[in-house]
């Protein structure tokens, strides 16, 4: 072994060239996506970041950020944004978990059919769905009529142009984002797991909380994060169903641009939202111990 002379083996050079060529091809295949990401994400976000530090006199300034600290209204906007996002996520979990559980218990064929029911709204336009809720929820809408008819309440209740309407609409739109990953993780739980738990003496309720729920948790966390983060930047639904009373960050950004044409202030809001989102994601990842999967080691 120690006397081994390092000479080129048969076809060694050709084999190396072939490998290099294959790697180049792979790189070439990835190139369009990389370029697109740079063009439509990195550059615009960088540009916004830059704008947020440009003052009204055209020089470097922190005035946009100072304003955000000075005026209470900004804090309120952020508070409402997080409130709506958190509540929407909780509602989605409360509705979505039993739904996903039901789907996961069904035989594959039936699960597919029911899944279609979950996905169908997903494929219709966001705007259409939002206005549909407006029609359903308004004072003389179907829901109020029906509730009065069956005697749930006597005079029409305000269900839209407020927090209630916003949350109903948001939860409906976000539900598939929670159900899909949750259903995926539930499908992966072997039937034997629940059999084993029962066999070892766990009642169905106990088996669920000790075995099924922890094993479905990864899907639930993934789904919840997707819903939460999407909610943070959501525009259409709160704008339509909130009726100007539920002002979230995205709505505020539009208002600033439309009324004051102040790119700097709008950018600063966007930057703060982006950073807040990243911090929340990072904390959630640390807390729930999946930071390695999300951010790398």
């Amino acid at each position, binding site marked *: 072994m120690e006397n081994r002379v390092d000479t080129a083996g048969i076809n060694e050079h050709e084999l190396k060239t072939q490998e290099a060529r294959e790697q180049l091809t792979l790189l070439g295949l990835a190139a369009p996506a990389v370029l697109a990401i740079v063009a439509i994400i990195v550059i615009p976000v960088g540009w916004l970041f830059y704008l947020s530090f440009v003052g009204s006199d055209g020089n470097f300034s922190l005035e946009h950020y100072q304003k955000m600290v000075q005026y209470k209204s900004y804090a309120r906007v952020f508070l409402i944004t997080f409130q709506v996002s958190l509540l929407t996520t909780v509602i989605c979990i409360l509705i979505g978990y039993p739904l996903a559980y039901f789907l996961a218990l069904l035989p594959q064929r039936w699960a597919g059919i029911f899944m279609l029911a979950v996905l169908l709204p997903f494929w219709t336009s966001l705007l259409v769905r939002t206005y549909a809720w407006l029609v359903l929820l308004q004072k003389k809408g179907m829901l109020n009529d029906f509730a009065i008819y069956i005697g749930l309440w006597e005079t029409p209740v305000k269900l839209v142009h407020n927090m209630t309407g916003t949350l109903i609409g948001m939860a409906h739109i976000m539900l598939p984002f929670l159900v899909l990953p949750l259903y995926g993780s539930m499908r992966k739980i072997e039937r034997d797991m629940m059999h*084993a738990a029962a066999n070892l003496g766990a009642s169905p309720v106990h088996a669920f909380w000790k075995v099924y729920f922890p094993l479905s948790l990864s899907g639930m966390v993934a789904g919840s994060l997707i819903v939460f983060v999407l909610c943070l930047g959501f525009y259409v639904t709160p704008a339509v169903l909130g009726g100007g009373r539920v002002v979230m960050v995205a709505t505020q950004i539009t208002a600033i641009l439309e009324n004051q044409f102040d790119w700097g202030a709008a950018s600063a809001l966007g930057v703060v939202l982006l950073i807040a989102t990243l911090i929340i994601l990072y904390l959630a990842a640390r807390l729930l111990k999946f930071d390695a999967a999300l951010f790398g080691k």
Partner: protein
Amino acid sequence: MAARQYFSRGALILANDSNQSAQASTALPIHIRDLTKRYGQMYALDSVDLEIKSGEFLTLLGPSGSGKTTLLMAIAGFNRPDAGSIRFGDTEMILTPPHKRDVGMVFQSYALFPHMSVTENVAFPLKLRKVSPAECAERVAEALATVQLSEFGERGIDQLSGGQRQRVALARAFVFGPRILLMDEPLSALDKKLREHMQIELKHLHEKLGVTTVYVTHDQREALTMSDRIAVINDGRLAQVDTPHVIYNQPANAFVADFIGESTMLPLSGDSAGRLMFADQVVTTEAATDAAADHLLVVRPERLFVLRGETVDPEKTIAFDGTVREFVFQGETAFALVAVDDRHELSVRFSTDSASSQNELQPGDRVSLGLHREDVITIPDNA
């Protein structure tokens, strides 16, 4: 209440593993009567009656789809039979939900909880039974020692090899002292060497625990190696229930003869004296009670031997003359196909030691094969 009781007895098993009599009382017999399970028109179990003795190692053996797993699942309580009775000792269990049956089970997939460590997995049934933390720790340590995994308690399940997972599944199944242990093809995921090693270990463990064990496999060699008795199951019915010796040497029917071990079957006919004949060869010297019915001669390949010109006593040995069709060296044995007439071939297995002259057999050689009369197996031909 009952669970608590089994439990304290279970502790006894592990504590006194040298005391055979103490163990016998910890096992329960299983009485299965008229058990039927249909899937649509198909009978997965067709009025199965089976008595599993207290403390025995009984294997349910059959091809896939034969109903062996359905039967095991019915004992564990994971499926709902259409009719029948399953009693553990004197207690009817057919309506009891699985979590109240108090039987240990090793799953084919092991079904270890991936979000728990080895220790947590093994402690799971103990915590459900409200065992004190101190006793729990002690019992888990004992169980892990029994399966030789004492050093692995803190590991996660994904840090274990297949063989180690198998042992954890085993420890978890017996740690709470069940009086019945069920195993569903527990070794099928292991490679051949490890599997054979674990077969012996499982047998020792059974001797040590003394629990009634019902083991499902489709591997007939595994069944023969491990079992006190084997229940051969086919098409939802029991084909034969007996010790490995009897199952192998006196199969009750063609299915058992064919499924267990290698065999060649030759058709027999009765002669005027009621003896069973193959061609002009007298196979049974005494008259068969039902000689009019069709019979088959079952020949195990390893029971045949080559006659090298020596004359044989026809009282003791049957001789078949034939032509070698095929000769295959397979390592520890060699295998030959010998045509005894136009339509029938005998499989023959030889030792491959250097002294064996069979090593020189060539296709086309004429050869004479002997079979001792004690090795003659005849079965009625129902087909």
